[in-house]
């Protein structure tokens, strides 16, 4: 994700005989975006700095990419910032939480992304919190946005991120006694036999008729 690549199909050197050199592959930016951010993003950043004096300490990166603003937040400060974003900056809705698993990012393998919506101001921003696979705890924002209840349960179910302070963090899509977290990159697609009420159904690839 970090290395710069060109060419459409990963051809190295002069392997590109089909004219597929047009699309330059850009690596995801790792630093903060410099001001001005453009649009209403400067206003949002100013308002947050004013309402939250610890801004520079809590927010590690501010990224503007493809017309979207992402605030990278230290996980210990997430709830404080969320509360201020809701009450002072009027981001009254959180559209859920989405997990991402980056196995190669040591110490920040698990990422939780919160898209926020302000209906009053018709604005959108995004919060991003990263945590280590060895300590997969992120504070829950259910006390700030009650509607995140199921979303956090889903992200726990799929990625194993433990949302501290959630009122009832249980699996929601997978069965309660399921092993592992399916959306992690080290979890295989298929090939898992299913046990239900004592009976085991082998994965399709292991069924007798396929062998």
């Amino acid at each position, binding site marked *: *994700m970090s290395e710069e*690549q060109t060419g*459409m*199909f*990963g051809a190295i050197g002069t392997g590109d*005989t*089909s*004219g*597929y050199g*047009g*699309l*330059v*592959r*850009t*690596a*995801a930016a790792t630093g903060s975006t410099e001001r001005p951010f453009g649009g209403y993003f400067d206003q949002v950043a100013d308002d947050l700095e004013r309402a939250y004096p610890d801004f520079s300490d809590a927010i590690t990166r501010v990224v503007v*990419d*493809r*017309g*979207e603003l*992402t605030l990278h937040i230290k996980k210990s400060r997430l709830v404080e910032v969320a509360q201020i974003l809701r009450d002072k900056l009027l981001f*009254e*809705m*959180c*559209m*859920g939480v*989405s*997990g*991402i*698993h980056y196995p190669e990012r040591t110490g920040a393998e698990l990422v939780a*992304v919160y*898209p926020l*919506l302000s*209906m009053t101001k*018709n604005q*959108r921003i*995004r919060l991003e919190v990263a945590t280590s696979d060895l300590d997969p705890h992120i504070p829950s924002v259910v006390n700030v*946005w*009650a*509607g*995140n*209840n*199921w*979303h956090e349960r*889903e992200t726990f179910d*799929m990625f194993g991120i433990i949302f501290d302070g959630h009122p009832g963090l249980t*699996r*929601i*899509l*997978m*069965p309660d006694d399921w092993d592992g977290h*399916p*959306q992690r990159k080290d*979890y295989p*697609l298929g090939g898992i036999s299913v046990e*239900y*009420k*004592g*009976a085991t159904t082998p994965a399709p690839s292991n069924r007798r008729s396929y062998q």
Partner: protein
Amino acid sequence: MTTQDKSKNNLLDPYASSRETTEGTVFSVTGGDWDSLVSEIGESKEERIIVNMGPQHPSTHGVLRLVLELEGETVTEVRTGIGYLHTGIEKNIEFRNWTQAVTFATRMDYLSPIFNETAYCLAVEKLLGITNDIPERASVIRVLMMELNRISSHMVALGTGALELGAMAPMFFAFRDREIVLDTFEEITGLRMNMAYVRPGGVSQDLPAGMNIKLREVVKSLRKNFNDNAQLLIGNTIWMKRTEGIGYLDLAGCTALGITGPVLRSAGLPWDLRKMQPYCGYENYEFDVITADTADVYGRFLVRMAELEQSLRIIEQAIDKLDKLEGQPVMVADKKIAWPAQLALGADGLGNSLDHIREIMGTSMESLIHHFKLVTEGFRVPAGQVYASVESPRGELAAHVVSDGGTRPYRVHFREPSFNNLQSTSAMSEGGMVADIIGAVASIDPVMGGVDR
């Protein structure tokens, strides 16, 4: 296991008794028996009972399980159990290329496939930075298809909602009208559902010849047909007794729970992404955002009924636009993204056009390589993440798409309105009568395929 152990085991789990056969152990998984429940209640002194409703209950809109705690007929607690239709669509998408992913996304919320596809494609286009390069004709066709789809989806919401509350006739009318829309879909895309019609860069093929005339007829007959259900239900005493003041959720409740769509608009807030954050050129259409102020099941019903007419208005404007854009491309000009490049309807169905086959097989080696690479490997998408949302019939449907610069999505997450809105079941139903849960759930209009993905 001894016989003793086995009989003990059967006692422990009355829902999965087992018996030995020559083929091995056979388990019979069954639900509870109503008669034994009633006799149990007769024996106990307590008023409070716990009832499992679903996941196969016909009034739960698919495989939704509700665990109800009742005191007499009053609901004191509702817990919602989901996941029975979880198919791992988000995981599967990570193993397909960017174009193939559409085929998975379309199957999530099976009543509004075009919205799933559009949300995903808008996100991919944003990642590619080609949002402004999408041909106008493609955007207009997307709008046309989305609004047709909104009608067919609302028809299921109205028809099954009425059926679940005991009204049979509205369902027949609603499904008759839905059938008209699905036939139109079949004529345009070849499929009635799960069409994978919207693709990154545009739509998979242009409308068939003479479609505009047919679409105008469809609009005409739908407009006439909508009256049937309106006359049956609006102001109907029985219908209003079952829906008025039921499933109440005010604006504060909606905001706290992240509710969008007709449920939010029934609480009085005219929040519609088509107006507030337009996409696909919705700013160029004239239509009204419908609201109600009752925040109950009846209000949501009225909102959906009135949205049908607004969708027809948009469709009419879209047809007018299509008349002017006749012959324009429906796929982005960039041949590195437009896949599959040239489709045509032949005697054996839809496939690559004969001209295209002749070119790649007979004249141009480079074209063949291009075609082969694009179809087998797909195109690359620059690294980054985006969030793209559309106003689906159920609320804000959004795709959070992450790319690592490869030919496959790194992570795709769908913010499904059904999933989010279903959380409000408890808030709407607790303290009410048990029969009103049905109305409340029907008014949320959850589609379990979308909830569980």
